[in-house]
């Protein structure tokens, strides 16, 4: 047994020593189980860095709103009259009641049910009843709080509770190209997330999910049951012989780049488990929209990318991880919808229902693993979780990004390296 022990300091003393807890080849179990570390994550990650919140297609019209979140924070994503998207913190400026109780709707203002204060959908205070109690109308400058920085990339809306810091473009870095790759699958170059959401309660630490999203080592084992009964070719993408790679995209983002496998086969639509003759309208529209480039797009397919800390694009599904406490989170999932591709969209909804969510033939088993993993991590020995797989065979690609084989833990190492930077940051 290993004698080196990294323990979390007791309350009232210094902060946890993240350099001791996060080592190149392994990470300490307390990172998944210690409520004090979770509290620090909220402060240093969830309430500071860029976090994915929602998609512009969920609020297409002025006045549209939808309830969203950043971790345990209850937000309302709104679109104002000028078309600008806002993220309001769902809390009345008067006595802290929840202002918005509906999941979604259309309204240019919100009225708090407790004392009737009203707010414009950009958060500005519109009025308060019996105004003489405040010396008249317009005497208070108390709006709903807003997430200070809101930026959108290709319709994907991110928020940051920090007033300043890296821009969204800087945060996304190389991962932006993967969002581009998803949008490129639409003949109109746009993705919509308007097929509703499945919400899957998961009794596990959020990092177990984030790490698993680009872990190409588990599919053959956790998903062997469904691969065997459907004869799915997905398993082969994550075999030892696969030419697919795992790439650390920087800033905690990572991907399973399946393109080498799809290029090897060179068959359009193979990534979607079909052939061009089964989806002729889509293929024709793509060829018309992209010309010579279309063939490559149709062969290479969709990205499989985890964008730190909570957005996972799994080819035809999008997942959002919402942490609630050290050992509980919610996985929100939906089917990708490609603008101008109704033929594909119907199939994507049907495939997504089969695969993801609480009853999904893939995700129910992933979630079972997360929950067992959480129980395991609470056991005392051997304290550490391994992240060393494939370290000896990692290489650096032409973009300067670290690359491992399909089953290597390259993505996890990238995740932890960025996590450590954020948790040790003294700003």
């Amino acid at each position, binding site marked *: 047994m290993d004698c080196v022990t990294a323990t979390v300091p007791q309350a009232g003393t210094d902060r946890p020593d993240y350099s001791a807890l996060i080592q190149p080849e392994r990470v300490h179990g307390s990172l998944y189980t210690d409520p004090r570390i979770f509290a620090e994550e909220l402060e240093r990650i969830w309430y500071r860095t860029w976090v994915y919140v929602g998609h512009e297609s969920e609020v297409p019209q002025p006045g549209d709103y939808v309830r969203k979140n950043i971790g345990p924070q209850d937000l309302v994503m709104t679109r104002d009259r000028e078309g600008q998207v806002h993220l309001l913190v769902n809390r009345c400026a008067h006595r802290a009641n929840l202002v918005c109780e509906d999941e979604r709707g259309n309204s240019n203002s919100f009225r708090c049910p407790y004392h009737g204060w009203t707010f414009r959908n950009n958060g500005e205070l519109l009025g308060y009843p019996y105004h003489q109690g405040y010396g008249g109308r317009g005497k208070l400058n108390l709006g709903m709080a807003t997430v200070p920085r809101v930026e959108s990339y290709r319709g994907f809306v991110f928020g940051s509770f920090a007033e300043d810091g890296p821009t969204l473009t800087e945060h996304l870095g190389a991962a932006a190209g993967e969002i581009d790759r998803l949008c490129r699958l639409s003949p109109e170059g746009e993705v919509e997330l308007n097929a509703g959401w499945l919400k899957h309660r998961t009794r596990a630490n959020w990092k177990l999910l984030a790490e698993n999203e680009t872990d190409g080592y588990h599919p053959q084992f956790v998903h062997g*049951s469904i691969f065997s009964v459907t004869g799915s070719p997905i398993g082969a993408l994550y075999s030892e012989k696969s030419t697919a790679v795992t790439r650390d995209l920087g800033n905690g983002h990572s991907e399973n780049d399946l393109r080498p496998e799809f290029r090897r086969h060179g068959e359009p639509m193979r990534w979607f488990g079909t052939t061009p003759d089964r989806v002729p309208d889509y293929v024709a529209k793509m060829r018309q929209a992209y010309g010579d480039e279309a063939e490559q797009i149709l062969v290479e397919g969709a990205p499989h990318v985890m964008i730190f800390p909570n957005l996972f694009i799994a080819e035809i599904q999008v997942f959002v991880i919402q942490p609630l406490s050290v050992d509980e989170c919610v996985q929100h999932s939906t*089917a990708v919808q490609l603008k101008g591709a109704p033929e594909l969209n119907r199939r994507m909804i049907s495939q997504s229902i089969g695969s993801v969510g609480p009853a999904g033939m893939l995700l129910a088993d992933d979630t079972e693993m997360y929950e067992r993993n959480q129980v395991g991590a609470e056991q005392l020995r051997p304290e550490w979780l391994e992240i060393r797989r494939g370290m000896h065979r990692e290489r650096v690609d032409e973009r300067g990004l670290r690359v491992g084989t399909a089953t290597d833990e390259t993505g996890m190492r990238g995740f932890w390296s960025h996590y450590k930077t954020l948790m040790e940051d003294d700003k």
Partner: protein
Amino acid sequence: MTAVADAGLDLRQIEQFLYREARYADEHDYDAWEALWTDDALYWVPAGDDAADPRSQVSVIYDNRNRIATRLKQLRTGKRYSQSPPSNLRRVISNVEILGTEGSDTVVGANFVLVESRTRGMEIWAGRVTYKLRVVDGEIRLAYKKVSLVNKDQPLPTLAFLI
């Protein structure tokens, strides 16, 4: 099983069928459960909104006969880890009402409460079920089962057993 002469199903026969379906599901008797379904089966657990179109909005489950077969094949492998080991289940079906007919199908409504026990703890599931029952070769068969959970708008735990 008692043979049924006509489509004119009476409440007692219907209840006996619903209890049997519930027992097969509770006891993970996948073969017996699968045999209850018609070829045009639809097994639906909506998410969020009951009124949403399942072809344009995601559902928790929206299985045709083919996908029911796949789901059961996966369970039978013994490596569907979310049901291996299987949950311990018991459900109560109540408030059974004949709501009408649709072609040759009898539409039946009922409420249910189900207790699930797993290592991670106990879960209580409850909701409204709509069944469409059809007499095929003298036996009652299940053509449609829609399970509308009371908490379908909330985050749900894993639902890998037959509900």
